């Protein structure tokens, strides 16, 4: 009987946590539960260092999709969450904007929003191209120059380009909408890419594979972190950072008002943005080098980000995006 009960408990827990993509438990003691979208391998050294520095804490690090996390937070289904750590800026800002987060103060290199939403690391956004098939892209400096080349009427990208499908990918939608707000030439640029042939992808890996294999010449709006480890693997794969500006996606964290261990969560945030930074890849650290190729435009932590979560705004953007394929957008 005991075995049956134990089995059922395990089964229900498995079903309940089925949406968790990965879980890592470190240490023993008071539980600190972090729900994150940052993959475990990328932060494991930092998690281990934090656990070693806090031997009285049992760190449970759970990875899930940002939308899943957001939906469950809003429905109040994560009473054990001490920290919500995600790169989905709009969803994070919206959660805090709804009054779900608690205020806290730790020294931070980047000012938090309302002392509630802290940036823990950053993700610079890059484009990639196939240096064998489109070596001339290496000579192009900024996106206006690229747009001018595209507007020449020649088929300069014979195998076309790729970017996220904003109707499918959350991060893709976030990056494209922000790009559209930041750049006056956004619609022209993507309109020209569409004329060359623009394939929409659900995932980063699809874009990297397509460009690396030479199936596509160019892909835009990728997280640099995903590309860098593959540069050695694919010799034709090259990174392009337009010199006009570079979008930077912040990975942010907030502590729910209902957090059982908010002190531990504050400690985690403090460690992450403090001594833990050196354990992150160089390009994800908050301290940015001064010799950057382009001025960086971090996606700002403002409630304006939530506008694109609005159905009206989303429909308007996607409607206009879809018009790219018909050539109606200029």
């Amino acid at each position: 009987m005991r075995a049956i009960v134990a089995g059922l408990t395990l089964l229900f827990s498995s079903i309940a946590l089925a949406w968790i993509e990965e879980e890592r438990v470190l240490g023993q003691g008071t539980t600190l539960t972090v729900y994150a979208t940052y993959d475990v391998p990328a932060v494991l050294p930092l998690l281990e260092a934090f656990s070693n520095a806090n031997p009285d804490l049992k760190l449970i690090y759970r990875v899930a999709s940002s939308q899943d996390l957001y939906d469950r937070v809003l429905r109040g289904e994560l009473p054990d969450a001490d920290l919500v750590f995600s790169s989905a800026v709009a969803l994070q800002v919206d959660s805090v904007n709804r009054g779900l987060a608690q205020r806290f103060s730790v020294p931070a290199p980047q000012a938090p929003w309302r002392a509630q939403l802290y940036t823990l690391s950053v993700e610079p956004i890059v484009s990639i191209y196939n240096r064998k098939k489109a070596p001339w892209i290496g000579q192009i400096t900024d996106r206006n120059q690229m747009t001018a080349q595209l507007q020449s009427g020649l088929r300069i990208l014979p195998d076309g380009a790729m970017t996220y499908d904003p109707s499918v990918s959350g991060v893709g939608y976030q990056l494209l909408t922000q790009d559209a707000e930041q750049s006056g030439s956004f619609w022209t640029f993507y309109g020209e890419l569409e004329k060359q042939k623009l394939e929409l992808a659900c995932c980063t890996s699809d874009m990297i594979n397509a460009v690396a294999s030479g199936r596509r010449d160019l892909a835009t709006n990728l997280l640099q972190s995903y590309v860098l480890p593959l540069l050695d693997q694919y010799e034709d794969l090259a990174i392009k950072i337009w010199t006009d500006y570079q979008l930077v996606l912040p990975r942010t964290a907030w502590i729910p008002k209902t957090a059982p261990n908010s002190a531990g969560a504050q400690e985690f945030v403090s460690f992450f943005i403090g001594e833990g930074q050196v354990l992150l890849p160089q390009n994800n650290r908050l301290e940015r080098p001064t010799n950057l190729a382009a001025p960086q435009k971090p996606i700002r932590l403002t409630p304006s980000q939530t506008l694109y979560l609005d159905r009206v705004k989303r429909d308007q953007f996607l409607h206009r995006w879809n018009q790219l394929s018909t050539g109606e957008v200029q």
Partner: protein
Amino acid sequence: MNSSLRARLFTRTLVMLAITLAVVFSGTQLIARNSLQKAQDNALQAVAQVIADSVTRENGQLTFDLPFEAFEVLAYQSQEALAYQVSDGERILAGAEDLPLILPRVPGQLTHAYTQVFNSEAMRFFYLNKPIRGTQSIAIVIGQTQTGLVREVNGLALQAAAFCLVAFLLVSGLLYGVLNLALRPLRSIEKALAKRADDDFSKLDTQVPKEISTLLAELNRVMGTHEKLLEQSRRFIAEATHQLRTPIAALAARADLIARNAPSEFAEDATELAGQARETSRLSHQLLTQATLSYRTPEKKPCDPRELIQQTLRRFDFIAEQRDIEIHFQHTGEGTFLLDPLGVREALACLLENALQVTPTLGDVWISSRCELGCLTIKILDQGPGFSDMPNQGLGLSIVKQVADNHDGAVTFNHGPQGGAECELLLRG
């Protein structure tokens, strides 16, 4: 009740000042809040207006934009949570569905600002209604938390408080100075009175403001009156002393003479008459002495205590000899002493007279004096019965006490070490 006039004026004016400053501070805070509130309302209205201006009709459907840049402008002003809602009166077209919607009280009013709690935080909302056609309209509500505003108001209030405090301190200092200036005439009157002799009733000629000139005039009038009364009293005492002392002394001497020469059948009556005459002479002398001492200002001057005492003792040589009483005098210490010689002589006379009176024939009276540490101590020891049978010293004791007071001293009476009474007169020079 006895606090100084300056303290009372100062504290009451300070209270009034504090109240004034508190009102100014609260007013500043209110104005700052209203001003910042108005600025926030204007910013919210601007965004609502941009949304309203973007409304178009496409294929019978109302469309509008939620302008990212306009919302960003709000975000740049202050880190506030945001909420908005766009509706056409029937349906919510965009934004939060659970906004606390408060319509204007005045029907037809197109804009309206209000504060309401939303998501557990006080938020400022701006409502804008844009009529489209007929009864159709679009209502836009946009709201922000007020964290920055509260912080700003508190900052301004703190600044105002700091300025108010500085103003308070400055005005308090000035007020203190003004009060000192205003009360200076009173203090000059006080000083002029303080350094006067007790019997100086001359007019005060201090220049005073007209507010207290009546007071000064009244003071001068009262002092003039007292001066006249004192002068009259002095003249009366001097006259009485002059007119009474000699005839009464002569009367006593005549009575003594009669008593000595009276025939035996009148001897007893004559002796009694002579005794009463002597007592009358003694009492009238003491009475006039005390009156003289009371109505004059003690005139202290450097005196040699030994000589002063010896002078007094010489007045009693005759009486002591008559009664075969030996007076022993011993003085310790050198130098002069600041004394009122008339008063000291009279006080000593009273004490000696008493000592001789109670000491039996062939007895002794010891007088010792000592100058030490700025004090003159005079001790008189008799061989009388002590205090229990001492005659009523009456006016004599009163004179001694008065002289002691005039010299910041004291008079004490003790039993002598071998009977009798010992009187100690302490005088400070």
